[in-house]
């Protein structure tokens, strides 16, 4: 089984053919637009080459002859200027449109990738979520995809444009004057050498900066959380010393990357001027000897200067590409995470669910199946029981007995390692998860509310469920009264900024949420962590009495006060069913249930005890 998705494993390659191919699959549907954008890119790059040529013509055809003849010919100059302006305007249009088209494609591709990633996450089993913190997954879906977007828009395409410009400039220079061009190209080996050196240094330095920054982050995070320990053990000076060391390493790495940049930019500028100087020296002689014209020389100088911008850009992009590749690797690794709890290829369709539940010798562990026979590590050890349609059963047990695990299996959040869980005699693995969860409703005590309205939270954004159904269900569980008293009734926003509901009100919403689908089986998970006051207890009890009647119900209870009126109580202990019977039978038996009951006798509020006494 693959471990956690590691954060820090960064790719160093600027590109990876396999990853690139998977990425390209996302832009393939927009081939036409892509092609148009690329054509525009080529056009824009070509138009960039026109300027120096116009300067050449202006000097050779207008300025120099005019100077020689001493006459003023504005016509030619004006025509050239107008032509130049048109070229500029066309270049401007081409660049803008290219950028826009490219963004459209990239954004559609990213939206698709994000959705795919998210949908995949939805299908991943809870086992996966046990291993991977939510924050990291959110980063994958948001930031990593956004970084990838840069790869498309300012990375690959721009790099292609830069290469195109370089080739174009070289071709234009060769076309103008082969010998002059070759003289200017003398600096190219130096350009290559400097760029290559810079790339090597920058890659190393950037990586060091990132690593050191990650260390500083980790150290800060740990020490901010653990500051009381630092203070208790009076280790402030030592912690500061260690922080200093990290800070120093970070500074060293930063200074190294600064040095690489500070050498690279001026060096490139110098090489540019060197090329101009070479052109002046050799080309100047050629002009004087009449082999070439002044216009050609000036145009050559202009080309030589324009040559260096794309080179600089390309060197800069290297870092970006590296990061984007690391992001895409992380994204695809997540997409490759196997969906282990899957729907069967030929699911069994349940026509009418009666609501019979059976556990057949179920063994379950959260990690991989523990080695050895009946040893430790199992959360459930051979659990078997059957619940008849319409029967009300409670499952109780001491902390760690396996109650929550059992609930997780019944909803197929996990699959058992051994044995079977059956609904109406059909193994849960043979039916579609979606269908199963339609028929088996789950009420969490610790209610998770989504941001949205009360109605949204009851119907869980399912537009198939009408307002009338929502309200009817709320009335059924007795939530209608308090909801109507809220400022906007069913349309009141809950959550952080909205109205804060009491624990009891949240539970009623959860109950309504489960019942709005009218499931044949209801599982009520009464978690130990939820602090419930007497009033809430009463509210929920009241609501339950009304809705349970004909439904198969399994109450998984930590508090025994909720279970005394059920048909049958199952006592789970250390992963096994150890006792079974009614409240009175189990109490009389004096076993685990009796101990649990006595343990909880005190915290039950007096009001409830009395009320129960009356009944």
């Amino acid at each position, binding site marked *: 089984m693959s471990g956690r998705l590691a954060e820090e494993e960064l790719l160093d390659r600027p590109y990876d053919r396999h990853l690139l191919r998977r990425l390209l699959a996302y832009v393939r549907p927009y081939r036409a637009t892509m092609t148009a954008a690329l054509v525009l890119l080529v056009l824009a790059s070509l138009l960039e080459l026109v300027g120096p040529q116009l*300067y050449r013509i202006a000097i050779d055809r*207008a300025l120099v002859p005019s*100077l020689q003849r001493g006459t*003023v*010919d504005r016509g030619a*100059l004006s025509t050239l*200027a107008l032509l*130049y*302006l048109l070229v*500029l*305007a066309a*270049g401007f249009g081409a*660049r803008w449109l290219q950028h*826009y088209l490219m963004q459209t494609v990239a*954004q559609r591709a990213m*939206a698709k990738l994000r*959705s795919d990633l*998210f*949908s995949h*996450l939805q299908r991943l089993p809870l086992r996966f979520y046990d291993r991977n913190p939510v924050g990291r997954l*959110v980063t994958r*879906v948001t930031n990593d995809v*956004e970084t990838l977007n840069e790869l498309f828009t300012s990375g690959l395409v721009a790099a292609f444009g830069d290469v195109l410009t370089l080739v174009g400039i070289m071709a234009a220079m060769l076309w103008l004057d082969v010998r002059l061009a070759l003289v200017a190209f003398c600096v190219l080996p130096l350009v290559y050498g400097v760029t290559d050196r810079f790339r090597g240094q920058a890659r190393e330095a950037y990586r060091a900066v990132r690593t050191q920054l990650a260390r500083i*982050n980790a150290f*800060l995070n740990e020490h*901010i*959380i*653990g500051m*009381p*320990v630092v*203070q*208790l*053990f*009076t280790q402030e000076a030592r912690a500061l010393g260690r*922080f200093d060391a990290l*800070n120093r390493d970070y*500074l060293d790495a930063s*200074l190294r990357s*600064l*040095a690489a940049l*500070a*050498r690279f*930019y*001026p060096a490139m*500028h110098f090489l540019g001027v*060197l090329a101009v*100087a070479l052109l*002046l*020296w050799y080309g100047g002689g050629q*002009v004087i000897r009449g082999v070439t014209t002044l216009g050609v020389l*000036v145009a050559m100088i202009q080309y030589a200067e324009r040559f260096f911008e794309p080179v600089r850009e390309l060197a800069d992009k290297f870092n970006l590409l590296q990061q984007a590749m690391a992001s895409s690797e992380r994204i695809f690794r997540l997409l490759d995470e196997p969906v282990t709890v899957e729907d069967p290829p030929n699911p069994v369709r349940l026509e009418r669910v009666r609501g019979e539940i059976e556990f057949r010798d179920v063994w379950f562990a959260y990690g991989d199946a523990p080695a050895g026979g009946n040893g430790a590590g199992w959360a459930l050890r051979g659990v078997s029981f059957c619940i008849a349609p319409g029967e009300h059963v409670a499952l109780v047990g001491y902390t760690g007995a396996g109650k929550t695990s059992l609930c997780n299996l019944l*909803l197929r959040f996990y699959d058992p390692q051994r044995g079977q869980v059956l609904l109406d005699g059909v193994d849960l693995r043979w039916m579609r998860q979606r269908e199963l*969860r339609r028929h088996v409703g*789950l009420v*969490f005590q610790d209610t*998770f509310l989504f941001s949205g309205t009360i109605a949204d939270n009851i119907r*869980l*954004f399912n537009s198939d469920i009408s307002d009338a159904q929502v309200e009817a269900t709320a009335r059924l569980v007795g939530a209608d009264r308090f909801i109507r008293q809220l400022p906007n009734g069913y349309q009141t926003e809950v959550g952080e900024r909205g109205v804060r509901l009491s624990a009891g009100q949240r539970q009623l919403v959860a109950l309504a949420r489960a019942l709005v689908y009218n499931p044949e089986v209801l599982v009520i998970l009464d978690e130990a962590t939820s602090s419930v006051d007497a009033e809430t207890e009463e509210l929920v009890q009241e609501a339950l009495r009304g809705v349970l009647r004909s439904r198969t119900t399994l109450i998984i209870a930590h508090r025994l006060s909720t279970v005394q009126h059920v048909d049958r109580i199952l006592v789970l*202990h*250390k992963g096994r069913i150890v006792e079974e019977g009614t409240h009175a039978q189990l109490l009389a038996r004096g076993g685990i249930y009796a101990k649990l009951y006595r343990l909880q006798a005190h915290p039950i509020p007096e009001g409830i005890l009395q009320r129960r006494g009356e009944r």
Partner: protein
Amino acid sequence: MSRSRFWTALHRHRRRYLLGYAAALGSIGMAQLAPWILKAAVDGIQRGEGRLVAYAVGLGAVALLEAALSYVMRMQILGAALRIETEIRRELFQHLERMDPAFFHRWQTGDLMARAVNDLRAVQRFLGMGLMRAVHTAVMVVLSVAFMLHISTSLTLSTLPILLLIPGLFGILGREIRRRFEEVQAQFGRLSARAQENLSGIRVVKAFAREEAEGERFRQESEALSRANVRLSRIQGLLWPAVGFLLGGAAVLLLWIGGEEVIRGRISLGQLVQFSYYLARLSFPVIATGWVLSLWQQGRASMERLEEVFRIRPAIADPEDPVRLETVRGEIEFRDVWVSYDGRPVLRGIRLRIPAGSTVALVGPTGSGKSTLLNLIPRLLLPTSGQVLLDGVDLRRLPLRTVREAVGLVPQDPFLFSDTLRENIAYGADSGDGKRVVEAAQIAHLVQDVNAFPQGFETVVGEQGVTLSGGQRQRAALARALARNPRILILDDALSSVDAQTEEEILRALRPVLRSRTVLLVSHRISTLRDADRIVVLDGGRIVEQGTHEELLRRGGLFAELCEKQRLRQALETEEP
């Protein structure tokens, strides 16, 4: 006042800045010289006279000098800013080290981290790139314009306004870009929130088979984000082509008007080339002005956010005029101590004297105030009213160091550092004394576990100790406290995750160590408390019973009831199905 810290830092590095600016001036000077050489060369070529080698060498030499000086400028100024960043980050950490636990409750870790990393980088960018570019740009513009005017006033007046349109373009488009960018950010925030919420509530999503529907809801947000991004790109994509268009436009004007000037003989062809050089080299500084401005805005906002943290003074700090204790005996007294959180009292008038060398156990239901009481002793918490005294001296009058060196506190959920076990156990000890570590580990019953690890004491525990079991973590924390050899040992339910038998053995090994120390003990296992000199029962923040184990059992009060519960719990824990 609020920026003084940053100006002090600048002042500290003034040599670097001055050297950097000197180099900047030199490099600008060279940059201004090059067009003159070019002009001379072009005019020379046109007249057909040579000296080309001299021009070429001159141009190369000037460029080399410019490059070298520019290197010095970057290294000095940007290097100084990086150093300042490091120094302020150090100050910030030192400041955080002085903050009381309440501060860390109030401030989110992520927020503090963002300030220590992102905001500090924004400040660094301003102090480096911002200050460098600001001066460079200003000097460059002034000099270039002066020379351009010298060549031709009319040419300058006709081309320069076009260049000046560029900052205007940045201003107008920049505002719209920012607006659309904020929309993108807002939608990005909604998308993140949607993902965060969904993934946190994945159990509910799965329980109600809402995976596909949730995927659909996410898709809508995702597409909205893409649409916002495309809207942004429509304007953003305009910016650089537009700048290119304007720069090109200036070149066209130069050709058109300048060409005529050449033809009319007002300027030489060489001067036209020279002029075009000035114009070309002005473009970057002009573009940079907007950038410098935004660096300044971001830097200033970030400085303010940092100052906000720096301004906070800790509620718990060393007294100005501390009382010095030669040795700490370990007598603790609570005098009518009240503690409230948000106006809700947690401790109500605690009066308790613990003689040096005695063992006192605290018992009470959850929320009765046990941990609060214990946290008062090492001054992790301040009493709202009343006094806590150590050896008869109010804690507030003692140096924090004295108090904390005397106290070893082991909490229920201890925090370990992602370091080796040895380093963790030796954390508070004076030196990395190997014997001390092993002894402490022996008492804490940790040695067998350690020996089972492949790397023994050199095993690195994961982030916050996640690779250890709960019981191992607790025992490591106990060993860590013992290795310090404190006068006062506080065990706050410190062995709750250790099984009963191991706890028994640890207590047996601890007995000789505890005999000479003041010990405060909280445990949910009553058996642990039996040997205490006194048991104090807390309920609702008050002391409701105290006495020895037998006395309290006889009384049949809250303690007796808790004992009975404990007995049941133990029975359930040990009973095998």
